């Protein structure tokens, strides 16, 4: 049944893409408005997941866990912005990379001290732990459907906020010309803190939703952070629309690459070559895409700044 398989893989790609978008949206805003490169963005994702797991364990309610993770991570994010990150805005990108790299080291060790070095459990709600029959022969995990739904809702909400509200206008103004926006009376200090908090909250949503699918463990933020960076660089730094397009591209390309490429190689070449070249190329695919995009459009697909 290649058609149901295709549909299932498309849903998988969509789900990965939407979660990457939640991470990338916050990252691209922070990057775009504050011209700040924040490697510790993945750390907020990790903190969100750990908070969710802890609250889920204590309360037994998944919804409460997500809510607590969102609020808690947003507060931590804003506190971080006010204390450590604010002095870095005027520094070079190099210093920002290092300071936030230091934050990763510190946060990872603190989490290890508080929660231990082993992964902790965060289970999906029992009601969603089974499959749903979408079409004859196409059973899809209910939980992943919910993840897709929440991802779509968040994307829509973000679109409405950025495009149709005053805050959104300020954000866009800040991303395209910070000095001018500031001169026009936008309170950038407050705006930065709020934007950072919102970005952190989106991280927490992604962390709490992906926790049951992946693993709540130290270092979980780093790998996904690199993917999120790839997404915003492809999409164009500062552009939320670019982040959405980039995230979906990366999500689908990665899913397709992992399944289709080895099969393709098996059909075309000897099994030995297939088992080596297939996985190699599949893991490289998104980086090839990024290098390719940067080669021809050095500012990404949707540059925020003219």
């Amino acid at each position, binding site marked *: 049944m290649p058609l149901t398989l295709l549909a299932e893989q498309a849903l998988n790609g969509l789900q990965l893409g939407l979660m990457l978008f939640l991470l990338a949206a916050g990252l691209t805003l922070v*990057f775009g408005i504050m011209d700040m*490169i924040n*490697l510790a963005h993945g750390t907020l994702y990790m903190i969100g997941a750990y908070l969710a797991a802890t609250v889920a364990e204590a309360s037994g309610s998944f919804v409460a866990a997500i809510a607590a993770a969102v609020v808690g991570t947003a507060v931590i994010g804003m506190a971080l912005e006010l204390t*450590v990150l604010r*002095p*870095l805005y005027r*520094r*070079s*990108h*190099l*210093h920002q*990379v*290092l*300071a936030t*790299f*230091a*934050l*990763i*080291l*510190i946060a*990872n*060790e*603190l989490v*290890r*001290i508080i929660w231990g070095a082993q992964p902790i459990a965060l289970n999906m709600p029992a009601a969603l732990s089974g499959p749903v029959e979408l079409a004859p022969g196409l059973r899809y995990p209910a939980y992943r459907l919910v993840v897709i739904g929440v991802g779509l809702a968040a994307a829509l909400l973000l679109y409405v906020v950025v495009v149709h509200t005053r805050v959104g206008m300020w954000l866009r103004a800040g991303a395209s010309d910070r000095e001018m926006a500031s001169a026009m009376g936008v309170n950038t200090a407050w705006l930065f803190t709020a934007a950072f908090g919102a970005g952190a909250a989106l991280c927490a949503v992604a962390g709490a939703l992906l926790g049951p699918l992946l693993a709540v463990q130290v270092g979980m933020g*780093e790998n996904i952070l*690199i993917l999120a*960076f*790839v997404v915003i*660089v492809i999409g164009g*730094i500062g552009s939320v629309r670019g982040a959405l397009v980039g995230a979906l591209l990366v999500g689908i390309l990665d899913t397709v690459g992992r399944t289709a490429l080895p099969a393709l190689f098996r059909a075309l070449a000897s099994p030995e070559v297939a088992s*080596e*070249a297939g*996985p*190699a190329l599949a*893991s*490289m695919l998104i*980086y*090839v895409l*990024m*290098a390719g995009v*940067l*080669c021809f459009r*050095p*500012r990404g697909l949707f540059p925020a700044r003219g």
Partner: protein
Amino acid sequence: MASTLHIGLRPLPTLVLVASLVLLPVVLTAVDQPFYIVLASRVLIYALIASSLNLLIGYGGMVSLGHACFVGAGAYTTAVLVHAGIGSAWLAWPAAALAGAVLAAMIGAVSLRTRGVYFIMITLAFAQMAYYVVVSLRALGGDDGLVLPRRTGYGFGLDPHADMTFYYAVLGVVVLLMAGLRRLLNAPLGRALQAIRDNDVRMEAIGFPVFRIQLAGFVIAGATAGLGGGLLADLNQQVSPSLLHWTQSGTLMVMVILGGAGRFLGGVLGAAVLLLAQELFSDVTTHTALGIGLVLLAVVLFAPAGLAGLWRQVAR
């Protein structure tokens, strides 16, 4: 000093530093601590690699977050040569440098079209690609990496497996390259590189081939890192994909900033402090990274010129 632009140590401190490095293993052998000779070799190698990154970041203004891939290129080249039966350091180490240079030329040719944040990200992306290539190729040992059955040899009846002999070989290479780096920084190419760091638009306007100068700097740094990788492969007698992991690039960057970017001995100082601190605290606590993170954060926030800069402030 010959001119205000002159970079490098004055003769007397240089002599003292080199002389104490030469005497170090003799002292360590006298007190029966061969382990620290190995550690010193590791520090020297990382000092060289960090200095090559310092050339990019500190003197060239090119913030590369993919430097580990050149180290990996050199290390894997040495390992593959040893497996192919070529066991001479006189061949393997230059080949490692060449591998680093070739990879740097390819990556630099594409990356140097971009600026700022995009440059950071694209160097990272290329390094990730290199990482996945190494992980996936069974000929390179995949996730397990490769074991070198023997270190590469030097001839003249010298045994590269003697800790002291290996240390002196490394010391020779590092001193030679640091001297070369110093010459480069004071030569027209080096000066042009620093001027581009300060104002690339103006340099372009004056008629300097900015792209080519930066690429030359990038390739030289890549070659040096590749050579460092070759030495590292010999030291560990093994290579693995973790050499190319992006956190390794981050750690190299930490060394440069910790020591002082754009200070001649910044990379050396940073490598020494970081590795010795790790060694010192590894017995006391498993949470060494917490301390390193806090120190690093403090350095970035309060002493952006690094330890070398701090030293100057205190000395003044």
